Each structure stands twice: as structure tokens, then as C-alpha cells.
């Protein structure tokens, strides 16, 4: 029963969500506390700021280098230029077309690099990814929502853009069929208007869920080691089997290394998907299919 009193509730999200501290090596008391103002944690605010500063510095540095018109030299210059060209060739041009790509390239590049930097913050030891917060991804989706519909309105005017959500349904027949066509049109228009909001919501939820789930899984796999070795946690299958610490540790560490590589890929992939879908939605808003 002593174990029962000491048993603690495990919160698998505690290391992933925003907090007022950074745990480096908590077993030896190496932690950074006090990352809060008025009781509200600011860890993610710091990471968001760092991400923005890194992206800002990198792009300004790239601008100064590229201004010379010389071919890229060095790893950093090549890498940053490659990222800009990647966004241009794989996101902007396929999404909004050759004509509009240069106009939207700054927005897409900034969005992609900002999300990518925030995602990568979670891959640095002891830190966390601000994109594991729905409010952060929601804010970015809100910006995309505004840009998407502002693009549509600027392309064809407000009234025409709103009308573009209404499908043209033509059904031959009597008065009943015509009423049915009207009802169908109104219903589908409603769905289309709803889709405009759903698209933005999905952008936010997809990025948030992927980052939250990925980092939570990594934490839980490592947490298996504590489950079989830390006396505070009681796991019936591991009781009296101290030797389990070694195989579980090896298994957990190896699996976490492999999944971390996958997470690294997902950090880039999710940034790409968010930006690419924004580009596609802008393209659809400017040139609706019906």
C-alpha cells in the first residue's frame, strides 16, 4: 500500500505542452524554473520568439548575400537558397500558378520557415515545439484563412467571390425538380461556405495533432524505463523484476532514436503540408472550379 500512496498520476502531455520550466536532468536537479509571468507560463512564447528571430536573421542574411547576384557559396547560403527555391518550385508554383507565385513567395516562405523552425524546436533536447499548441497553429491558420479569402476577393471582387461558392446545378423537369435543384444549390452552397472554415480549422488541427502526438509518443516510450525501474510507479508485470530495466532501456532508447528521425522528417513534412495546402486553397480561391 505504500506504493499506492506514492503512486503518481502520469500526465503524458506534461513535457509537450507549455510550462513554466525546462527539465534538463531533473534527477540531479538540473532544471530551469520561473518561466512564467503572473503565473502564466511563457516557455512557448520564448520558443516562438527564438524561432522568429532565427528565421528573420537567416532570411535577412540570405538577402544580403543574394543581393550580390553571385552564385551561392558555403553550406548555409546553399541551404537557405535551396529552401527558398523549394518553396517556390514545390509550393508556390504548383499551388497558385506561375503568374502569381512571385507575389506569394514571401508569405509562403516565411510561413514554411516559421513553422519548420518551431517544429524543430521540439527536436532539440529539453526544449518543446510551440506548434504542439492549438492556439499557435490556430493563429497561423487564421492568417492563412485571411490570406486565402483576401486573395479570392482581390481576384474577382467580393460579391463575385461569395457567389463562386454557389454551385450551378441544372436539373431538367417540372416545378418539383426545379425546387429540388434550388434546395440542392442552397445546401451545397452552405457546405461550401462551411468548407472554407473547415479548411482553415483542419490546417490548425493537423499540425497541432501531429506535433503533440509525435512528441508525446517519444516521451511515453522513454517513460517505459521509469515505469519498470522507478519505485514511485507500480506496474504489476514488472514487480520484482529489476533486470527488466536493461532490456526496456535499450529497447526504448533505440526506438526513440528511430522515431526521432521520423519526427525530424515529420517536422519538415507538416510545415510543407500546412504551407502547400494554404497555397492550394489560395489557388482555389482565385480560380474556383465552378
Amino acid at each position, binding site marked *: 500500500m505504500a506504493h499506492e500512496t506514492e503512486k503518481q498520476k502520469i500526465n503524458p502531455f506534461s513535457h509537450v505542452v507549455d510550462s513554466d520550466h525546462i527539465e534538463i536532468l531533473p534527477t540531479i536537479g538540473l532544471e530551469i524554473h520561473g518561466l512564467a509571468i503572473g503565473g*502564466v507560463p511563457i516557455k512557448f512564447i520564448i520558443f516562438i520568439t527564438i524561432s522568429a528571430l532565427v528565421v528573420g536573421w537567416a532570411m535577412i542574411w540570405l538577402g544580403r*548575400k543574394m543581393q550580390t547576384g553571385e552564385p551561392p557559396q558555403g553550406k548555409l547560403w546553399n541551404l537557405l537558397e535551396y529552401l527558398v527555391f523549394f518553396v517556390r518550385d514545390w509550393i508556390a508554383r504548383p499551388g497558385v500558378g506561375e503568374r502569381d507565385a512571385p507575389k506569394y513567395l514571401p508569405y509562403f516562405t516565411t*510561413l514554411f520557415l516559421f513553422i519548420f523552425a518551431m517544429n524543430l524546436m521540439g527536436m532539440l533536447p529539453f526544449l518543446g515545439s510551440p506548434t504542439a499548441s492549438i*492556439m499557435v497553429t490556430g493563429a497561423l491558420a*487564421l492568417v492563412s484563412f485571411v490570406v486565402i479569402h483576401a486573395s479570392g476577393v482581390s481576384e474577382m471582387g467580393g460579391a463575385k467571390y461569395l457567389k463562386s461558392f454557389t454551385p450551378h446545378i441544372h436539373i431538367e423537369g417540372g416545378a418539383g425538380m426545379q425546387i429540388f435543384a434550388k434546395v440542392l444549390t442552397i445546401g451545397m452552397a452552405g457546405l461550401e461556405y462551411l468548407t472554407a472554415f473547415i479548411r482553415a480549422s483542419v490546417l490548425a488541427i493537423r499540425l497541432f495533432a501531429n506535433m503533440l502526438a509525435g512528441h508525446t509518443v517519444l516521451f511515453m516510450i522513454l517513460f517505459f524505463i521509469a515505469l519498470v525501474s522507478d519505485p514511485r510507479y507500480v506496474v504489476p508485470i514488472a514487480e520484482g523484476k529489476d533486470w527488466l530495466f536493461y532490456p526496456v532501456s535499450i529497447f526504448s532508447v533505440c526506438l526513440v532514436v528511430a522515431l526521432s528521425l521520423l519526427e525530424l522528417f515529420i517536422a519538415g513534412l507538416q510545415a510543407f503540408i500546412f504551407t502547400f495546402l494554404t497555397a492550394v486553397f489560395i489557388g482555389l480561391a482565385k480560380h474556383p472550379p465552378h
Partner: protein
Amino acid sequence: MRLIPLNALALLVVLAFASPVLAAEAGQEGGKLDFLGLQRYDLGIYTLIVFGLLIFVLNKYAWPKIKVGLERREASIKGALEEAKRERQEAKNVLEQARKQLNETALQVKAMLDEARRDADNLRTEQREIGVKEAQAERARAKREIETRMAGLSKDVYEQAVTLAALMAEKALRRQVSISDHQRLLDESLAELQSAANKA
């Protein structure tokens, strides 16, 4: 840091400190969905402002330069491409000219060979004619020489025959000769005639 306006940095700092206060005012609720952080709208506002500032700063300090760089790069690549095209055309022209010259040279060589062959044929014909003429002249000369020699020899034979006849007549006049003597005399005379011919 020179490129990032100080007021933008100041705004970031103010927001960093202000947003938690805003969130605190909104109140925090505990629950199973705490991990969603739905009450943390300060994070959303802060993200909006930071992202907006980032876009503003980059549009002012990075993208114009990147655009200029891209245009210069494009112009440079375009120039290099045009130069390459021009050089390729020049190389094509040179190749065409070289090919033309090669063809002309081949024609010239062929003409020279034909001429040489024609000259050789002419020379061969001339030489043959000369040879034939010389051979004919030589033959005529040899014939003439043979005839001269034959004439000389005939004269010698004639003289020898006369001498022999005189000799035989002289011997016949000195004694009575039998048939066998006659035969022997004739043989001796022929032998002498032969030796005289050999000596000649």
C-alpha cells in the same frame, strides 16, 4: 541586429510580458483537456503578432534584396545562356566552315590525284612511244649492221671458196685422184673452209 528595428524588438518584449497577463485575466480552468491549452489565447495573439512582424520585417529587409538577387541571378543565367548559344552558333559556323574546307580540300586532292594519274598515263604513253621508236631504230640499226656483216661474210666466203677452188684445182692438176681421194679432198677443203669461217 542593425537590420531589425529597435521598436520591433521593443514591441516583441512588451508582448512577451503582456500576453501572459492577458491570459491570466482570462482565467485558467483545469480539466482533462488541459493539454489542448484552449484557454491560452495569449499564445495565439502572440503568434499572430510575431508572425505579422516577421512578415513585415522580412518584406522590408530581406525580400527586396532576395528579389534583386534573384533578378540578377536570372539575368546572369540568361546572359550566360545567350553567350553559350552564341558561342554554340559560332562553333557551328566554324564547324560548317571546316567541313566545307575539308570538302574543298578533298575535291582538290581528288583533282590533283586525277591530274597526277593523267600525267602518269601521258608520261607512260610517251615513254612507251619513245621506247618503241628507240627499239625500232635499234632494230633497224642492228638489221643494217647484220646485213653489212652478212655482206662482208659473204664476200669472205666467196673469196675463200675461190681460194679453195683454186687450191683444189691446183692439187687436181698435180696427180690423178681416186674417188676416195676426191672425197678426202673435199672434206679437207670443207674443214679448211670451216676453220677459215671460224677465224673470221
